[in-house]
Every structure is written in C-alpha cells, then in structure tokens.
C-alpha cells in the first residue's frame, strides 16, 4: 500500500485528481520513444503546441497550460490565479456561465482545471470523435474572457478554502510551514490565497490578470489520444492562430535568500492527532542533484520497505502515516517535505528524533546497491504505469514544456539511473540539514467529540 500525497499543493476547480502531481513528479522515461512521436510546433503568435497520437482507447485529452500560478501573484492579492481559473468557466463574450462544462459533458466529455504555484492548466477528456469541441471552446475563453457572477464565484472559492484549509488541521500546518520556509519569494503564500486577500479581490483584478497572462505567447497546448495528429494540429491552428498577444507578462524577480538557521513554528488548534511537517530548501531540475533527491524521497518513504515507513509505522508504531514529497519540476527551487501524522500518546520530539537519526544514517552510510536499485525500479515501473493514462502523458509533456523543453523528459530516467550510492549520502548531507529546515508542529487542543450511532444529536420535526 503506497501512501498518497498528503500535501495538497494543486487546487482543483472541483475536488478530483488532487494527488496526481506527486505521482507524475517521479515518472520519467529511459528510451526516447515517447517524445520522438510528439509533433511539436509554435504558431506565429507564439503558442506552443504538442500533439501525440495514442490509440490505446477511443478517447482523447486536450490540455491548455498557462504559465501563471501563485508564483506570479503579489502581496495583498493572493489567490487571484486560482480565482481566475474558476472564472474561466463563468462565461465568455459568446457563452453563458457554465455553458462550457455543459457542452463538454453533452459531448461525452469531462473537464476540469487546476492551479499550482507555477502554472494553471485546463483539460478535457473526451470521446475521440469530439475533440474539436474543446479545441474551439478553449480558444474562445483564451480570447473572449467575460465572466458573469463574480461575487458568487468568489464565495465558492472562499467555501473551498474553508473546506480545504480552515477546517483541515493538516493543511493548515503545511500552509504555515511553507510561509515560514519562504519569506521573500511568492511561494510564501498558499495557492488558494489568504482569506482576507480573497475578500478584497475584484472583477477588475481578474480581468486585468487574464489580459496579462492568458495570451498565446504564455500558453502551451498538449493533445494526446486516439486521433490523427495532422488533423488535430490543423484544428488547433485554425482555432488559435488568430488570437493576438498583449504585452509580455512581467517576469518573477523574487529570489529566496539562503536560510541561515532552523525555523520552528507551532500550530495549536482543535485536532485529533498531532502532526509534523519538515521542509528543507532544495534545488530543482536545473541541478543534477535533483535526481539524487528524488531517490532520497523514494528510499525514505515510498513503499512499505522504505526506511521511514519501516521504522516509524512498523517497528516503533509511532505514526499513522509518514510521507516525503519533492517536486523537482518546480519553476523556482522549492522544498523537500517530510510529513507525519502522529499516534496518540507518542511524543512529537521522539518522532522528530527518529527522523533525524534516519537522515543521519543515510548521510553517514551510503545505501547498498540493492536498495538503490529498488528505488530506481520503483521509479521506472511507475513511469510505465503512468503511460496507461493519456491524461498523465499529457500532464508530463506539459510540465516539461513549461520549463522550456518537453524533450527534457527523455533525460529523466537517464539522470535517475546515474545516481550512485555516494550521491545519495552527499545530497542528504548537503540539503537535509538543520539550518535549512523549517519544522512545523501541530499541537491538538481540546478533544473532538466522537459521536456514535444511536442518535447523538437532537431530533427536530
């Protein structure tokens, strides 16, 4: 039983598919067959288009990535990226609110969108015969954004924040940890935004944001499925070529300075169980150390034979769950997370101590060839499994193209394969150390009621 990603950094329009990115982050490819088959082009207006035939099932997926996320936001106006994502479904100059989804569904498709720190993506999965429908609709809302019902949609987003964060002790903890780890860089604030900022966002803010960031030069299209690539390329070109660009979006200039010394933060609130989040500053895909860090994440907490699972869940029975998370495809360097939900009557400091010991062990003694091979096998296998879903294929291509070139995907398993036991120990020593750690602790206050069957509440007629 593999643990799923517990730190929600991807905020969906509706609550599905939230945990997919952690899986994708460890998928890659040894041979280059996948990207060789990709047809790539740049339209005259700068829009990048990637098309890949996959005839496994009679379905197709269409994705539009915009290079905008919470990373592009400013103090006092956080959450605008995600709010605009919601508003993209609330109508255009030609379509009424929610008509977009209705048309997709009437054509046997599903649609959704999500916002991350680094990008915003819209997607449809649809019967292969109807792919032109999302192509036309996505072109329409890139060009003709005109949302209706701003206030009610903002209210929906505030309900989403209540659901995900306010009433969720663990998500509250990750939010606080992240805001301590990043002080100057926009990764400081959560993707969904601070509640007070949401209250003050206006329709004008949203229209301006769309105008700056939702242009062809700032977007990537990825289509994967059971279709003829030439035909789909032609349809995309016909629908998107005439859309014009505005000014170039402003660059993100903030850089997080090196952390000098551990940061500790506590969150006290009603909760059932204590929890911890450790976050370490680490490099991203630009640094070859990122491959070794992926292996470290595997060795520590992927699978029941992983070190932290064995020690904390099986041997010492101190935690309900323990996870690692590392997104090497983050546009700017981000965090390596170790999180655990702690059992009742276990001292938080004891859990932190065990994690410290495991980190020290991995730093001082290189893993065996066998254990390293296991981690590499897990990565390779999950890549193959990932190909079983055309949505995941499209996600991967889009994520790499976001960083500049989808063909970097071909280097992924090569990079993983090159990692040596010594690399593993070296990067653990270099990055997973105290001075670069932010440690956040959730301390439950009060006891939650445990209602049992046999009417616990009052009955009203």
């Amino acid at each position, binding site marked *: 039983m593999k643990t799923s990603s517990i730190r929600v950094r991807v905020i969906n329009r509706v609550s599905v598919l939230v945990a997919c990115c952690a899986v994708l982050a460890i998928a890659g490819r040894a041979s280059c067959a996948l990207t060789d088959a990709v047809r790539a082009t740049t339209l005259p207006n700068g829009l990048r288009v990637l098309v890949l035939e996959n005839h496994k099932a009679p379905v197709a997926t269409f994705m539009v990535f915009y290079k905008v996320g919470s990373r592009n936001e400013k103090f006092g106006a956080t959450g605008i990226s995600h709010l605009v994502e919601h508003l993209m479904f609330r109508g255009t100059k030609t379509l009424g609110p929610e008509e977009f989804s209705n048309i997709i569904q009437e054509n046997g498709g599903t649609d959704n969108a999500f916002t991350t720190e680094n990008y915003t993506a819209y997607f449809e999965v649809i019967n292969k*015969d109807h792919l032109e429908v999302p192509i036309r609709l996505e072109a329409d809302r890139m060009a003709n954004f005109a949302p209706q019902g701003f206030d*009610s949609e903002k209210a929906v987003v505030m309900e989403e924040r*209540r659901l995900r964060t306010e009433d969720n002790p663990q998500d509250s903890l990750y939010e606080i940890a992240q805001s301590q780890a990043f002080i100057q860089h926009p990764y400081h604030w959560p993707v969904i935004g601070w509640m007070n900022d949401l209250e003050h966002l206006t329709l004008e803010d949203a229209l301006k944001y769309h105008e700056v960031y939702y242009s062809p030069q700032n977007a990537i299209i990825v289509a994967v499925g059971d279709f003829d690539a030439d035909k789909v390329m032609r349809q995309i070109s016909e629908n998107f070529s005439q859309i014009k660009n505005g000014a170039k979006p402003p660059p993100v200039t903030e850089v997080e300075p090196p952390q000098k010394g551990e940061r500790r933060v506590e969150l006290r609130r009603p909760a059932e169980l204590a929890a911890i989040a450790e976050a370490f500053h680490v490099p991203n895909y630009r640094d070859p150390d990122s491959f070794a860090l992926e292996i470290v994440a595997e060795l520590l907490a992927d699978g029941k034979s992983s070190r932290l699972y064995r020690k904390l869940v099986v041997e010492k029975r101190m935690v309900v769950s323990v996870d690692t998370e590392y997104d090497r495809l983050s546009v700017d360097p981000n965090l390596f997370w170790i999180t655990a939900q702690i059992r009742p009557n276990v001292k938080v400091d004891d859990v932190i101590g065990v994690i410290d010991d495991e980190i020290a062990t991995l730093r001082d003694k290189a893993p065996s060839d066998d254990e390293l091979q296991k981690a590499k096998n897990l990565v390779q296998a999950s890549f193959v499994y990932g190909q079983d879903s055309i949505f995941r294929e499209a996600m991967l291509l889009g994520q790499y193209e976001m960083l500049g070139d989808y063909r970097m995907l071909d280097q992924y398993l090569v990079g993983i394969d090159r990692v040596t036991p010594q690399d593993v120990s070296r990067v653990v020593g270099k990055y997973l150390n105290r001075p670069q750690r932010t440690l956040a602790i959730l301390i439950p206050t009060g006891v939650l009621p445990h209602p049992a069957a046999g009417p616990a509440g009052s009955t009203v007629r």
Partner: protein
Amino acid sequence: MAKTKPNLAPLLIALALLFLIPTRLCALEIKRYVLNNGAVLLVSEQHQLPMVTVSIAFDAGSRRDPEGKAGLASLTAASLAEGTRELSASELNKKIDFMGSSLTVSADRDYATASCVSLKKFFPQTLALLTSVLTDPGLRDEDILRKKTEQIAALRSADEEPGYVAKRVFTELLFDHQPYGHLPEGDLDSVERLTPQDVREFYHTYYHTGSAVIAVVGDVDAEQIKGEFDKALAKLQGQVAPQPPPPPPKVPAGAHVTKIDRNVTQANIELGFEGIARSNPDFYKLQVMNYILGGGGFASRLVKQVRSKAGLAYSVASFFTPGKFPGSFQVVLQTKNSSANQAVRMVLEELRNMQTRPVSQKELEGAKRFLIGSFPLKIDRQSSIASFLLQVEIYGLGLDYVDKYPKLIDAVTVEDVQNVARKYLHPDAYILVAVANQKEAALDVSSAAPANGGH
C-alpha cells in the same frame, strides 16, 4: 488587449448535429472462463504496454462483519497483505518494492479485493506472491495486532474530517445495525474488540473461490493465465454461504436531524434515505434522474442552484450507492455555518421539483449524451477495466454490456424520470446529519417544509 473573437456559430451547429446518440462507442474484448476451483475468470488482453493488472473479488466485504465486530473484514484484508507462511511482512514488502510492483488487499462494503500491478517482466513473481498471500497467509498475531492499531489510528485521523464524521453517522443511522450499517473500516469501539482469532476465522469462512471473481487486464495470454489460475487458488476451493438480504431501511415521515457540534467554519451536511440495489431494474432511469438532479456536476440542478447561482458551496452532489443490497441515496454538501438553513432548503426544493415537474427534453438529452458518450472514459486504463470486469460478472451485466448500455440509457423517457423521482426521493422523510458549529448554523428544517403542509 486586442483579442479577436472566434465565431462560435459553426460549433453550435456542429453540436446540434451531434445530438444523435451513437450506437457503438468502444469495443472491449472479454474472455470468460469458469475455473476448476469454481472462480470465474475474466480476461481482457491489452498489449500496448508491458504491464498487467489483476483484481480478485471475494465475498468477504464489510457486510459480512458479525454484529459488534464492525471493521473485521477490513482488518482481515489488511492483515492478509502482511506476509505468508514462508515470508515475513518485511521480506514480502522488500520483494514487492524491488520489482516496483504493488500488492494490496482491501475490503469495501460488498467485496474484499486482492490486487496486483506489475511490469510484464515481473508478472510471474508478482502473481505468485499475490496468490500465496491468499492461499498461505501468515496471519501472525503480531502482524494482525499491528494492523489493528493502524486501523484504530486511521479512524482517529479520519474523525478529524467533519465530512467523514457526517458520512459515518449518516450510514450508522440509516442502516441501523444492518449489513450496510457501518463503514468498512468500522468504528473505534468495535475495532478495539477485534482479535487475531476473529481475523483467522473470517479468512477461513469467506475467502473461497466458489464465489470469487478474477479480472486480469494487460499484456498476457488469456489461455495461459487461465491455466495458472486453475492451479494457483486450488486451496481456496469451496463455497461461501449466501447472505440473506436485510429488510429495507425505512425512514419514518419527517425530518430526522442529528446535530454534531464542532468548532468548524462550515456545516458538513448529509441528507438522504434508502436507495436501491444494483439489480433493481430502475437503475438506469435513476442514473438519468440523478445526473439531472445532482450527479451531473455543472450540468446538475444542485450545482447550478447551490454553487453557481448562490455561491453557497464548493461542492454539492447527490448520489445513489447501489450494491448487492439496497444502498443509500444522499446529498452531500459543505457550506459556511450561517448558510446551512438556506442550502438545505434549496436541496429539498430541488428534490421536490424533480417529483412535481417533468424535466425538460434538453436536460434529458444532455444526461443521456453524457452517460452514453462518456462510457469509453470509464474503461480507458487497466485499473478501471479491471473493476469494470468485476462488476460485469458480479452483477450479471453480460459480456456485451458495453453494447447494451447505450440502449438501456437511451430508452429512458421524461415520464420515467419523474416516476422514479416520485418513487425513490423522499423530501418529507429523510435523515439529516450536520457536523457544524451548531450555534452559528442554528439549523431548523421546520421552515423547509413545503408550503402546502406535507409532513
């Protein structure tokens, strides 16, 4: 910024033309075998990727939990994946992880499912490990007790989520001590009482091939895999005694409101009543009806009213949970405490509207076109094909279900939708569970009664 406006007229015309219902969407070749050991094996060969998925369903779901031992089916399933007579839990985990395979056993309401996913090159070893945890499980005291404490801790963790608490209490109230009267994972008190001996007895009673269904999807040869399964599970030969269906739950007239007070910002609401069994012939009519009511996402009335128009909730949906026995119908939503009354009123009004007024032809067509057109999306990868195959066999849907389904949906009429809404929706006799800050929510459903009185 000057952006040009694409002309959408051709699109709208195209949409109108597409209103024809397609007759054949996708083909799924299924081979069916009855094995020597009594199990039914369904195989769908998929050779595009070098991987294989196996799922085996046993008649060992949580509806089999003995009275007072809720959670036993789950604990048994979890304990099975903890080693064999020859391999300790950690030896087994090491082997599985080294191949990058996965091996899981878990129980839901109706069935316990043992599954593995592996690369083709590791399939023989992975399958051998799966079959040996089923035929020769370790089931050692220490491993069972460890899984038990994990299950208890997971229950406490889940109880942190107000939505989970609402769902759990709703289930317990509606199916009061019947086979569906608890969530598969049980509750803190009942799991606390479970013993290793309970687990071993449950395993010996319910893990038999006579009522098992095996689904294999992937890069395999059907005949060869049949031969392997003929041998591999021989030890589990035998039947499981059939379980008599429970009396249907009846919710007496009126609103039965249970309030659970928590210091949260949202009211987490579950509102519902009894539903249907999967074998009920009204299943397809209800699918269409519920799509229009609250199952169809942004096309549904509940989302349109409660979310899109009023901005009261991020998520609101209705669903039936048809199983071997009649399941529930429920509407689930979260809204800020102070909007709880308004949201509940809107939900009840939509339930009544489904009964009193026929749906429009446009809504009916929209529902049919989605349900039929999206069918291929439900079987577009190995894991979803495997669960589809299990359902085909368990509910006797027929190997040609992919072809039959569009016709079953297409036959549903406006009158059918209204009739099943009248028959199966009960806006005047329901259970409502609200986990909320009760002071702020001040829930009072008496104002939600229809104008003409009713109950």
